């Protein structure tokens, strides 16, 4: 199957989203993240805000926009927890920045690339959260369960693909 994924640099820079989409989708992701584990506790392994952060970062292809998007989503996520505000904000800022920087180098429209990218970035976020909790906040009892984090990365990878395909419809290419 041939996937037409080439876009000119001009097209790359003109990808954008309408304001309602840019606001509603992250908020909806955070709401679903709060509600879904209540209905099915195993769904707590999902990280919908992370998936949305990655999607907007690689779609806009602007590191600054990616940093802002990731920071805002992460901070909103922190507000609903009992953690200090900024833990998820910092982690997702880095995710947004790296994702946007990488998107101008590789083909992020390909499904395989998207899957691999989601998997790797999910692990990267786990490492970032570990460093922030363990080193920055000094929580000695915080351990990284690698098997669980691998499982989380796989689950997020499979969930991200249909979400990416759905959100592709909201892109504006002028």
């Amino acid at each position, binding site marked *: 199957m041939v996937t037409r994924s080439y876009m000119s640099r001009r097209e790359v820079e003109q990808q954008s989203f309408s304001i309602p989409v840019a606001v509603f989708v992250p908020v909806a992701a955070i709401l679903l993240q709060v509600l879904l*584990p209540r209905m099915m506790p195993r769904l*707590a392994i999902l990280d919908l805000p992370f998936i949305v952060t990655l999607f907007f970062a690689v779609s806009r292809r602007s590191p600054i926009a990616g940093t802002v998007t990731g920071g805002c989503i992460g901070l909103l996520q922190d507000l609903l927890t009992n953690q*200090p505000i900024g833990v998820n904000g*910092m982690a997702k800022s880095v995710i947004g*920045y790296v994702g946007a920087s990488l998107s101008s180098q590789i083909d992020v429209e390909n499904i395989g690339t998207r899957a691999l990218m989601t998997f790797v970035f999910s692990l990267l976020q786990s490492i970032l959260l570990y460093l922030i909790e363990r080193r920055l906040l000094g929580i000695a009892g915080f351990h990284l369960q690698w098997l669980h984090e691998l499982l989380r990365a796989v689950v997020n990878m499979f969930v991200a693909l249909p979400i990416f395909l759905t959100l592709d419809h909201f892109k504006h290419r002028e």
Partner: protein
Amino acid sequence: MEFLTRFKNALFLILALLTQAIALAVQVRSPADPGEPDGPKVRLIRMWSMATVTPFERAAHAIGSGLHNTWSDYIDLGHVRQQNADLRQQLTRLRIEQAAIAEDALEGRRLEALLAFRQQYVASTVAAQVIGSSGSEQSRILTIDKGWRDGLKPDMAVITPDGIVGKLRDVFPTTSQVLEINDQTSGAGVILANTRIRAILRGTATGRAQIGNLTADSRIKPGEPVITSGGDQIYPRGLPVGTVESIAPDPDHQPYTAIVVRPAVELDRVGEVLVITGTQSDLPAIAQQDLSTAEAQHAADISAERLPGLQDDSDATGATPPGAPGTTPPGTAPGTTTPPGPPPAPITPRPLPALHPDRYTSGATPPASALTPGAPITSTNPQSSSPPQSKPDKPN
């Protein structure tokens, strides 16, 4: 200038991270008010975000509850009869257990009074529904639909009939956040029920409840119940916490052991909770009434056990005393019951007639005034027969 233009993206990221790191440091370092987990500004921001999210959580909860109630109240009724029978059986069992422990409870209260120990009983609670969670595995937080307008305050204990859930963290006007006992910032004073060892229960980053301040002790076994000690001034004493699941050396804190406790409450699935809004040193009125009833029943049981032969004459012959409620006296039409009359005269306890009377049977011996020295004893009891006489052995 060229440097800024060339590295503007990286500089922006550094600035964003630096800002958030400083914010983190301020939050961690700044002393919060007593009883408040966050500083006033952070609390305000959290309150705004909660106010934004809560309506959606309430709506989702209302829709979910409506669907569930419709299904369970009108459609899925097949198991109700069996459930009713099970509950009746459970109620009977609990009544028997209650009577059995009433004496222990009274003894405990007497000892507490002797030691001037002030036990705290749950006096008042507020029922609440869980409407949301934090959405993060690093933060074990529940959102309930009651706030300070309902009388809730931070650090109030949150329980279910199965055991403790956690305590209130942030309390907003109409909602509150419950910090579960398995959160890494949570803690509770507990007692291992069998060994009576006091310990501190803490949550871990992986969502487990763990006791980590005890050294290895061979008496502690998996399956041992864990209850609250009351020493933390949050959870009243004696509430179920869970059971010991595993015991292993703690690699981070040698020579202590990591005792993992399985919570008594399914924290992931808890739907309705009770917030303890008040405690008192005396038993609540209803509990006192139950205890009195159980005590009376227990005393009656002991009397019946120790004096099995003492009963009314009419009982001895198998007849029911006339005038007893619910009976039909002679001359009354069948099917009618006598109204409750004046209370019957006090019953004089008498022993049951002996199955095999002998000279030692009560009433078989005449009074001493009627006896003649040297004369054979004749029984005065018409029902009693003469004592069995042993035949003299004849030689063969």
